[in-house]
Structure formats: C-alpha cells, structure tokens
C-alpha cells in the first residue's frame, strides 16, 4: 500500500513540477504531501502540534498560489521540513524537527538501507539470490536481445527499416527520471527518521533550570555584587540615553528624509548591540546557582528594570520608524525594522520569563524559535508589495513611484488601476503600462500547474 501511495505521489510530482515554474503546483504538492504523510503515519496526525504544522504548511502553500512571493516559498519549504520532522518525533524542539525533516527528506532511504543490513548483520543468502535472479531475468534477455537486433539489422534491409521506424519519442525519459526523484522524496518522507543522539538529548532536556551542586556562598555573594553594580550602571546609562532620545524625537524635523533615515538606522544598530549585550549579561548572571541564591532580589529587580527600559527603547525606535513611514511611505527595509522590533520585544519578554521562572537557555532557544517560525508563517500570508503600493499611493506624504514599479508583479494590477486614474505622470504611466503588459503576457503563458490567483482575476 505504501508503495502504491509513493508511486501515485511520484507521478503527480512529475506532472506538477517537470519543467514548470512555481504556482498552483506548490499548493497542490503541499496537500499531496499531507495526504501521503497521513496515509503512511495516520497516528501522528492525532497530535495537535502535528496538525498545527500541517496547517502552517498548507496555508503557506496556498499563499504561494495567491502571491507567489519569495517569502511564501521560503515559509513553505521551512514548514515542509518542520512538518516531516515533527512526524518523526513530535515532542522534539522546533529546530530538531527541522533537522529531522532535512535528514528524512534527503537521506532516509539510505538510513533505512543501512539499518536493515545492520540488524541482520548481512543480507540473507535468499535475499541476495532474489536480487541476482531478478537481475538475470531482466538483464540477460535485454542484452542478448539488443545484440541480436544489431545482428539481424545488418542481415535484412526490411527488418532494418522496421527497427529504425520504432520511435520512443512518445516516452519522455526526463519526465520519468523526474518521477523517480519524486518517488525517492515520497519514499523518504513516508517513514520519517529522527537524528540521534541529538533528538534523544533534546527530549531529555527540560526547560527548567536545576540547582547545581553546592557552590561556596562567598562566590555567589561576589557574583551578585558584580551583577548588581553592573546592572545599576547599565540602567543609569540606558535611562540617560532614553531621556536624551525622547527630547531629540520631540524636537526633530520630520520632513528631512535623510535625518529620519539616519535616526531609525542608528537607533536600530544601537538596539541590536544593546539587546544582544542585555541578553548575554542576563544569561551569564542567571546561568546557574545565582537563580537560587536567597539574596538575589535586588539583582532580579534591576534586571527587570533593564528589560523594561530596553522595551522602551524598542517603542522609541518604533515611533521613529512610524514617523518615517508616515512621511515617506513603506519600504521592505522599514517593514523589516518593524518585524525586527516585534521579535526583539518578544525576545526581551521571554528573557524576563526565563529570569522570573528560573528557566534554562534551552527554554529561550525553543520559545524564540517557535516565535520566529510563527512570525515567518504569518508574514508569508500578506501580499507585501500590494500593501506597500496601496499605503504609499494613498497615505504617504511623498511617494517614490520608481520604487513601486520595481517591486514584484504582485502590485501590477493595483498600479495599473492607479495609472488609469491619471495618478502618475506620463513617463511613470508608460512604465506601469509596460509592466502590466509584460505581466499579462506572463500570466497568459502560465500552464495550469503555474497558475496564480491573478490568472483568475484577469479572466474576471
């Protein structure tokens, strides 16, 4: 039964992807993969986390059909590996799922091949005989037949003509080879494999920090003193920086693009260094027994304060970025800044939980990876080119039309509607019309496998 599924999957794989660009085929492949995984590992789909990952995979597949953005394709590939990996071991961390998924997809066949021989020590004599017999039955007659055809061809011109007329052009061997690749892929993922010992180690590692063996109180006291002084000074420093920054923000000229750009970028750079240092210092002091030391309350409060002040720094940068966007429109870099700020805020919040609930480094890694994955999936569901174009043409005080024209084809239909409404000068209008016609041509040339949502839209 498993082989039947894999063969059907391989035929569909070749039909969907052979000499095709991405589009509807990736959405259908996502559904096909889920069906084959569910058919082979039904019990894995009783688990909620596996269902969530399967949903994420199918949603990103749908996003490729809707927008065909690089982000959606990346999210789809990442979620594919994570889904396959979570079927091999659903309790493992997300990064271990990803590793297991990569391994299963690329080399599970060879792993199973080795394991079979490792278990039996040596392939049985009967098994060997079976392979040799099959090889003989197919190989020897084939070779003898080819030799005799070659001989008879020279002996009889009529036979030679008939043989020459045999045309195998109706068989596309590349298509068949592509199907074999599909079979290899589905064969690999049909029984997902866990990479060991890393998966076992991950499963046995808890999120909570355990108290290590007795450490001299004097040593803990010294460490606490150092931490308290350092945190106090850092708090004073960041507070001073924030006061001057707030005053500066209130006084600055929001019409100067260069000034705003410099402010946002230097602010983000400061933030990156500050957050990295903040997390490293916090992890250093709260790495072991200082978490359990009874006189650590002041150090903990100072740490919470520092995290809060860093969050305030995030808010100020977000405000500067908002001013920048409001005046000069959205760009990918400005969206990137917002996503970075979101991830930073979550990172700071999880660090706070780590200190408050006495969690270990693995907790931080696990929770932050989950957050990053969720952000990737959610971000892939939006047509960013269209959002950027819509905002910049309707709400931004100044618009860089050239930037909008150079975005992907996802904003073409919207740009065309604005161009028809005489929103652009004649030069920009010509460029938009050129982009529109090129896009229509590309859409009309799409096969059913490459179809996008815009194919349906233009038909309407």
């Amino acid at each position, binding site marked *: 039964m498993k082989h039947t599924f894999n063969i059907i999957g391989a035929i569909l794989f070749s039909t969907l992807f052979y000499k095709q660009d991405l589009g509807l085929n990736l959405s259908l492949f996502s559904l096909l993969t889920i069906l084959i995984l569910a058919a082979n590992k039904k019990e894995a789909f009783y688990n909620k986390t596996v269902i969530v990952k399967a949903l994420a995979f199918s949603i990103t597949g749908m996003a490729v059909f809707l927008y065909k953005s690089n982000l959606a394709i990346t999210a789809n590939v990442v979620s594919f590996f994570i889904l396959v990996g979570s079927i091999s071991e659903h309790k493992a961390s997300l990064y271990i799922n990803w590793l297991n998924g*990569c*391994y299963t997809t690329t*080399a599970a066949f*060879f792993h199973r091949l*080795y394991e079979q*021989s*490792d278990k039996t020590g040596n392939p049985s004599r009967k098994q060997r005989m079976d392979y040799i017999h099959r090889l003989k039955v197919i190989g020897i007659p084939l070779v003898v037949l080819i030799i005799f055809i070659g001989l008879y061809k020279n002996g009889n011109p009529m036979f030679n003509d008939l043989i020459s007329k045999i045309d195998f052009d109706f068989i596309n061997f590349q298509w*068949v*080879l592509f199907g074999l690749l599909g079979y290899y892929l589905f064969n690999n993922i049909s029984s997902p494999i866990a990479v060991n*010992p890393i998966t076992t180690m991950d499963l046995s590692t808890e999120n909570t920090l355990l108290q290590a063996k007795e450490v001299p109180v004097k040593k803990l006291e010294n460490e606490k003193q150092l931490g308290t002084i350092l945190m106090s000074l850092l708090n004073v420093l960041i507070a001073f920086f924030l006061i001057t920054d707030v005053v500066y923000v209130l006084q600055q000229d929001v019409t100067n693009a260069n000034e705003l750009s410099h402010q946002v970028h230097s602010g983000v750079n400061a933030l990156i260094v500050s957050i990295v240092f903040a997390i490293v210092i916090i992890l250093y002091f709260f790495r072991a027994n200082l978490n359990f030391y009874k006189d650590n309350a002041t150090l903990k409060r100072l740490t919470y304060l520092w995290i809060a002040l860093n969050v305030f720094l995030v808010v100020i940068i977000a405000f500067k970025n908002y001013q920048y966007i409001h005046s000069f429109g959205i760009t990918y870099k400005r969206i990137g800044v917002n996503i970075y700020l979101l991830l930073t805020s979550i990172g700071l919040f999880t660090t706070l939980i780590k200190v408050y609930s006495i969690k270990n480094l693995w907790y931080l890694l696990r929770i932050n990876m989950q957050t990053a994955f969720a952000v990737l999936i959610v971000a892939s569901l939006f047509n960013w080119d269209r959002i950027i174009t819509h905002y910049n043409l309707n709400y931004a005080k100044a618009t860089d039309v050239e930037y909008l024209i150079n975005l992907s084809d996802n904003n073409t239909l919207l740009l065309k509607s604005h161009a028809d409404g005489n929103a652009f000068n004649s030069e920009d209008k010509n460029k938009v019309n050129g982009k529109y016609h090129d896009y229509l041509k590309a859409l009309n040339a799409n096969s059913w496998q490459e179809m996008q949502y815009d194919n349906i839209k233009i038909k309407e």
Partner: protein
Amino acid sequence: MKIGNTAIKATLMATVIFWSVLFTEEYSSSMFFWIIPSIIPIFLCCLLAIIFTVCPFFWFSEDSLGNSGIFKRYFPYYAIAVFGVCAFTIWKFNCEVFAIGFFSSAFFTLMQTWVWNSKNDANENL
C-alpha cells in the same frame, strides 16, 4: 576499510547515474563510445571524494563508537551538507543537464558509499 573496492563500486554507480541523466536530454548512439573513457575521470572523482570526505570519519573517530555509531552520529549531518552543496551548485549552474548529472550522481554515490563502508567493516567484525 577497502577503499579500492568501494571506489570501484562507486564508479559503476556514478557512471550509470551520470549517463542515465545525460541520455534523457539527448540520445545519440555515438554517446556510447564516451562511456568507457568517462570511467577514468569518474573513478578519480569517486576515489578523491571517498578519501577526503567519507574515510576521515572512519579513520579519526573513537574506536569505541564502532561503524554503527559512526554512521548514526555523522551520516545525518554529512547527508544534509552534501545535499545542500549539490543542490546549491545545480541551481548555480541554472539546472544544466551536465550539472544535474554530475552532482546528482555525486550525491547518491556518496550516500551509498557510507552504507557500503559501514556495512563492509561491520561484516569484517562478524
């Protein structure tokens, strides 16, 4: 470890995969004449790849691990890395048939070489 033996088996496998891919693009009976001479460079590629990328895992690992331990510990990362390198290079060569043939044969042959190497030594220990 029987490097020569493994290299010969790997050469046969790589030759079959490489020429199968090439034949699917364009079939011509004159191509058959190139198969025999191509075995020499393929053998050299296989030998070098086995000596420099597969054997060190078996030579420099702790003896206590055994072949099964070496395979389970290192093969997954090796497979992922080799797949990444081969896929990236095929993409860099704009999916040209020669590149597909060369790197897909390299990938599958190296994977099988691990199985042969681990199995061979396991059988020797029996």
